[in-house]
């Protein structure tokens, strides 16, 4: 038996070095890689999480086009909702990635990570980057479809959209991990996420322009963090469309605060700061969770 041979061979002695910055980086990297490996091997998930965005984009987009062609100044409705659909796809995938933390706890794998001689911050950070990367990959599939809905394949548009998706995915994963630290059952976690994600999506103006809204909706829209992720994507797309400035003004007016136009850079900073803040809370929660 091979076991007997192995017992005769001199053992390969290894050594676990004291904690260092390098060992923390390695831990982050492997937690991140694990998400990628699992995503790659889970083809069903890649397909199923595309269904919803594609329904929105092609079915809802084509259907509602009949009603709205007059008010979109000749712009295809699919083009209009494309950025919102990208956001939706990224949100769902990021949420599922965060859900795997709840899963890991239920199936015990979490303990393997928590007893390792590394900081819990490294594990949480690795997890958030993993979720962000996986969700952006999912987004790439939708980016490939840009041409079919009238969005030009210009490097500036595609790279810009990819960057924004990465940012949004990171923030949503951080949010999910933060929630997962508190909620220990999968059912409850999915329930909470649905309850939060769907309203966020509908309020964010993913499917409609954010000017001339009823006052209550305008307020909720400005409070919704997702607004500040969808708006830069839409402005990026519309800046590269060959349409009249009037149409651009109606369809991608940009977010305003009491009449002041919020610059894209500030919007990006809002999403990033929120993501980092939630990452901070998640780390703090996991550190206290002994």
């Amino acid at each position: 038996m091979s076991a007997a041979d192995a017992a005769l061979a001199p053992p390969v002695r290894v050594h676990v070095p004291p904690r260092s910055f390098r060992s923390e980086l390695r831990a982050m990297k492997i937690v991140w890689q694990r998400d990628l490996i699992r995503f790659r091997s889970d083809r069903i998930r890649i397909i199923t999480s595309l269904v919803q965005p594609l329904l929105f984009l092609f079915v809802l987009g084509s259907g509602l086009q009949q009603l709205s062609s007059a008010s979109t100044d000749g712009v295809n409705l699919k083009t209009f909702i494309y950025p919102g659909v990208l956001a939706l796809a990224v949100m769902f995938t990021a949420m599922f990635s965060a859900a795997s933390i709840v899963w890991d706890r239920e199936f015990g794998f979490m303990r393997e990570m928590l007893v390792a001689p590394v900081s819990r911050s490294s594990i949480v950070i690795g997890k958030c980057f993993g979720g962000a990367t996986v969700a952006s990959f999912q987004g790439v599939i939708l980016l490939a479809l840009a041409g079919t809905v009238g969005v030009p394949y210009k490097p500036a548009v595609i790279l810009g959209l990819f960057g924004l998706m990465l940012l949004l995915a990171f923030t949503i994963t951080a949010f999910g991990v933060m929630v997962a630290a508190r909620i220990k059952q999968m059912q409850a976690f999915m329930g909470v996420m649905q309850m939060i994600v769907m309203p966020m999506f509908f309020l964010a103006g993913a499917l409609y322009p954010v000017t001339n809204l009823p006052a209550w909706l305008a307020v909720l829209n400005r409070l919704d963090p997702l607004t500040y992720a969808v708006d830069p994507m839409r402005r990026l797309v519309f800046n590269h469309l060959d349409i009249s400035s009037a149409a651009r003004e109606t369809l991608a007016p940009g977010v305003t605060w009491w009449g002041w136009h919020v610059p894209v850079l500030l919007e990006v900073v809002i999403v990033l700061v929120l993501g980092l803040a939630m990452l901070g809370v998640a780390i703090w929660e996991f550190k206290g969770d002994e």
Partner: protein
Amino acid sequence: MDGTAPPPAIEVDGLEKSFGDVHAVRGVSFEVAPGEVFGFLGPNGAGKTTTINMLCTLARPTAGSARVAGFDVVARRDDVRRHIGLVFQDPTLDGYLTAEQNLRLHAELYGVESSLVPGRMRQVLEMVGLWERRATTVMTFSGGMRRRLEIARGFMHSPRVLFLDEPTIGLDPQTRSSIWRYIRQLKEAEEITIFMTTHYMDEAEFCDRIAIMDQGEIVALDTPAALKAGVGADRVRIQTEDDEAAIAALADRFGIEGRTSENAVTFFVEGGEEFVPRLFAELGVPITSVNVSRPTLDDVFMSHTGTTIRDAEESSATHRNRIMLQVMTGARR
């Protein structure tokens, strides 16, 4: 050697852990020498897992202190973690990854030097007979294979102390004995101290020394042979037509304390076989069957706690259920 003993692999002094009013571990003290296989034996709920969790830095002691591989479990948590391997009672593998990927992940988390990882991985996988299955997703593994992989993973970073919490729980007898074969082989191949818990008496026999734990306390600690010798007497188990009368008669005529367990009266007496004829002649209660045996660890447990390990488990399960019920109905106390 200059005669000084090497420092103990594990030193525990007055360790306690309470969860609110519940005292799970009530001041245990012991030492484990390097290279020893040390077992914690006791029913579920005796505090074995809580003790292991404290030694592995997963739970903070309420009082007392412990040093593992020379490091204090509270003050030098990371140093303890670097030097220990863990195999938990519940599985902690990632089923979506292959055996190899699980080990690789472990090596990365522990910062094992990359150039040594492939050689070490091959070695530990071969030792548990899973090298051929290294590229298989763990999800498809049987319970016994998963356990072996977890044991291999516990060894992956060459720990000084390996903790095994109920390493064979829920496995069939054949798999259990193969797991034990692997553990013994690994033990021979590496300089390692093994600390394990079990509630299987036959497994406790593999240990160099055993601590018997009951209700959060160590009630006996010695080698299996010494513990059994300590019972001194043989175990006699009789079935009678009236157990209560039999116990009364035993006390009366022979001055022997008998206990009922599992529908029989059990007592200990020196020279059991010679005692049986006297028993039949003098007891005065009809005996339907008799069984004399050398003491087992079960008897050691019984002589120290007054119950069998199985009865202790049942009563602790009822106790736990009662607490659960009180918590759920909000009717505490």
